[in-house]
């Protein structure tokens, strides 16, 4: 019953998306309002339908319906209810269905919130959003259906008696429920972690969220409304997508740090990089559209960036889900690879063709030109160039070099971590320097003297902070330069915020908290942006600290024995215990005591969980803002008398996660809805456009 319900809802959502696509385009082309409204209603129907389909699969997971192949492959009778819920995105089929649900959620939100204010853009926006949804629902329906069930065909040869189909085959009988439960596969142990519970949904929301600005941009190109309406309409959607993508990347790093047991959080793995590329292009886009809104410049470039962001999202999806890329993060090799590649190529080509057409017609003329080398728009463009350079070199290292070498030489050349560690730091350094200087520059033109005056206080604070850091611990040249650039960006954000609040205090006699609150409330984008910059600064400090100053060592200890790890820390092996968990795994836990300067700091319990067919090494960590003391149990004798530990001391690593939280807060402030006037303005502008069109 659940399978039938899910399948029917899925099929209906496919039909609804197709209908919405056709009606929206037809309505716009034929100037038939009724068709456009009919298309809109069909588009709105996709969300409840996909909610029913996803709900059916979720209920099947929770009620242990092992006849459904997906339930059988990702859960077993020992799986706790909590992980039954998260198993929804534990494998390709369920996660693709969940992906469709999130995409229809964004689509529904965009239609409901922008329908009145951006009426002229809506038909083609719906068409592009529905084209993307149609493709993914089609993948789920025809290639990766999560509602297929196991059947037994008694009349078939012995080796072909068990079949997996979505529809009931003739003469089929139900398999034995107990046997199905006994043979079920269970959730991949790597996915049983808090980070993995919310990391995939966040990443999906980030990925699919960029469909909305892309669709509105394409609607602008197709409809001819080439004002900044599409940017105003999608500013929040872009920020929301960017927020979720950032959150997904940070949580993915946290998962790797806790679960993969190598003491790090970013391995420059191709699939990690594939998720990072849309973030880089999306960040360039978010900055670049400000110039179009303020100065009417970079119209072609902004269109290119939104196309590139969507294209990077589609490529990232292909890289993760096709199984073509070898990675611990990728799904198994799947039939979705070629269709995804085809969809990615087709959508990118259509988008570029539309852009070229409008460009050649001269419809995307800039209203101003670049003047001063130090003007804010020039520095923003430089920042864009740095983001795109990072995108290109990371793409080249992850995919370009292997693919091209294979094509032209017949031998694949891969680029390892060395490549990324050599190529990306100078570009990240430039990014931080520009992040510090650009907000201080004025639109149109800025003199060196003016910029120097504005930089004086942040530079002074940066120098003082470097001196303090240098006095408290020895610094390498790389760390000194890195910290210098990162701190400058952070101090600029802080000083500018304090300056703004001080100005309010001086003119309105407000208290500091009130002045700061009013400042963030009055200019959300600017001061939310500064908070985001501060978050990126904190992340940067964490990355430099944990990369440059990481200590890694291995110790074998008898029970009761203590060993010195470095000048401050000692480690004592206290005991070992082995137990059986309710889900069938054997838990091997060591207890160790950590001392700092002779005093007990904490007791840690690193462990190895033996699942029936694979072990999982779970670190024990003592986390402070200053550093992580991270211990892995790597081996133990049968009696537990002697155990070997791998110890990492990761300075400042927690700043990476705390910086992420600041970034989220800043983005939420910048995104939070407040103003209503621009929407009315867009309605007026749209109506005026329609009248002119009708008259012309």
């Amino acid at each position, binding site marked *: 019953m659940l399978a039938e319900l899910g399948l029917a809802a899925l099929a209906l959502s496919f039909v609804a998306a197709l209908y919405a696509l056709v009606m929206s385009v037809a309505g716009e082309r034929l100037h038939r309002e009724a068709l456009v409204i009919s298309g809109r209603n069909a588009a709105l129907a996709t969300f409840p339908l996909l909610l029913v389909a996803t709900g059916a699969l979720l209920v099947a997971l929770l009620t242990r319906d092992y006849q459904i192949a*997906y339930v*059988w*492959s990702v859960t077993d009778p020992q799986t706790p209810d909590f992980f039954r819920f998260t198993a929804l995105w534990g494998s390709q*089929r369920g996660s693709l269905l969940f992906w469709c649900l999130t995409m229809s959620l964004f689509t529904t939100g965009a239609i409901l919130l922008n329908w009145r204010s951006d009426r002229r853009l809506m038909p083609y926006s719906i068409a592009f959003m529905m084209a993307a949804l149609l493709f993914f629902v089609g993948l789920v329906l025809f290639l990766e259906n999560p509602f297929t069930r*196991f059947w*037994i065909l*008694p009349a078939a040869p*012995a080796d072909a008696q*068990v079949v*997996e189909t979505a529809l009931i085959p003739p003469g089929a*009988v*139900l*398999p*034995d429920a107990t*046997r*199905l439960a006994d*043979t079920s*596969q269970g959730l*991949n*142990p*790597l996915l049983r972690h808090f980070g993995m519970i919310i990391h995939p949904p966040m990443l999906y929301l980030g990925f699919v969220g960029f469909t909305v600005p892309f669709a509105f941009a394409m609607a602008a190109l197709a409809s001819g409304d080439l004002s900044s309406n599409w940017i105003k309409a999608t500013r929040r959607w872009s920020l929301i997508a960017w927020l979720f993508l950032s959150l997904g990347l940070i949580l993915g790093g946290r998962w790797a740090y806790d679960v993969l*047991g*190598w003491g790090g959080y970013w391995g420059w793995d191709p699939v990690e990089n594939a998720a990072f590329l849309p973030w880089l292009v999306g960040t360039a886009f978010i900055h670049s559209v400000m110039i179009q809104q303020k100065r009417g410049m970079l119209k072609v470039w902004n269109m290119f960036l939104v196309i590139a962001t969507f294209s990077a999202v589609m490529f990232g999806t292909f890289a993760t889900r096709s199984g073509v890329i*070898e990675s*611990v993060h990728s*799904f*198994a090799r799947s039939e979705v690879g070629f269709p995804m590649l085809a969809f990615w190529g087709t959508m990118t080509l259509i988008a570029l063709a539309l852009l070229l057409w409008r460009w050649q017609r001269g419809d995307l003329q800039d209203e101003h*030109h*670049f003047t001063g*080398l130090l003007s804010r728009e020039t520095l923003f463009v*430089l920042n864009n*160039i740095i983001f795109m*350079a990072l995108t*290109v*070199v990371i793409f*080249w290292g992850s995919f370009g*070099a*292997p693919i091209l070498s294979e094509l032209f030489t017949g*031998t*694949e*050349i*891969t*680029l*390892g971590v*060395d*490549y990324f560690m*050599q*190529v990306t730091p100078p570009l990240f350094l430039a990014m931080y320097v520009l992040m510090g200087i650009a907000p201080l520059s004025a639109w149109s033109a800025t003199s060196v003297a003016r910029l120097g005056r504005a930089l004086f206080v942040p530079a002074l604070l940066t120098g003082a902070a470097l001196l303090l850091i240098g006095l408290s611990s020895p610094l390498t040249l790389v760390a000194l330069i890195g910290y210098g650039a990162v701190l400058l960006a952070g101090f600029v954000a802080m000083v500018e915020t304090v300056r703004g609040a001080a100005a309010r205090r001086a003119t309105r006699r407000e208290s500091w908290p009130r002045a700061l609150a009013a400042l963030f409330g009055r200019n959300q984008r600017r001061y939310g942006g500064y908070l985001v910059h501060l978050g990126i600064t904190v992340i940067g400090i964490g990355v430099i600290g944990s990369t440059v100053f990481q200590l890694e060592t*291995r110790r*074998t200890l008898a029970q009761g024995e203590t060993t010195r790890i470095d000048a401050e820390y000692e480690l004592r092996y206290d005991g070992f215990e082995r137990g059986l968990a309710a889900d069938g795994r054997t838990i091997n836990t060591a207890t160790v005591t950590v001392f700092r300067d002779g005093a007990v700091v904490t007791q840690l319990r690193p462990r190895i969980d033996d699942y029936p*067919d*694979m*072990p999982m*090494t779970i670190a024990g960590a003592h986390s402070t803002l200053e550093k992580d003391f991270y211990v*892995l149990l*790597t*081996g*133990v004798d049968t009696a537990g008398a002697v155990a*070997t530990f*791998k110890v990492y001391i990761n300075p400042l690593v927690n700043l990476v996660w705390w910086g992420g939280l600041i970034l989220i807060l800043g983005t939420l402030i910048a995104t939070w809805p407040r103003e209503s006037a621009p929407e009315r303005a867009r309605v007026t502008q749209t109506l005026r456009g329609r009248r002119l069109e009708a008259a012309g």
Partner: protein
Amino acid sequence: MAQLAWEKTGGAAAAGKRKRGSHARLKFLIGGGLILAAVLYLALSGTMTGARFFISVAEVAHNPALVGQSVRLTGAVLGESIVYDSQTGDLRFTVAHIPDTFDDLAAALHQAVNDPARTRLVIQMENQVMPDLLRHEAQAIVSGKMGSDGIFYATELNLKCPSRFEDGTPDLTAAQS
């Protein structure tokens, strides 16, 4: 006359503006060119340093020219060959050759470990935590250098276990209802 004077002044101003505009454009072009050159230099030098051939076990084992070169290879892990010393972190295991292209990874790995005629290569690693996914018939992707002693000294190891990532079919033959 006034009109003429105005035109002359306006023309000179426009010419000056055009000159300043082309001067600014030149500055932007030079700046852009320098940035492009720097990025290209970074990418090229990084490629020269970090490039590794991704080749098969058979190619590595049979080509003496590859001794001492940084390469990346993939093979099927033979479970009984895994030896791990937790005290030193030394890890040694053997991989069997798998073809460059295959339809079913699980089948390709199964065939590789069960075919005694397939080329096999011993992989040696130092200072490792025993990888969770290192087991019989796992796909190992290792980077490192081939030693003159016939052992591959790896510095990076990635593993993939098809049984953990791919959906299977239950054995229901004993329990038809």
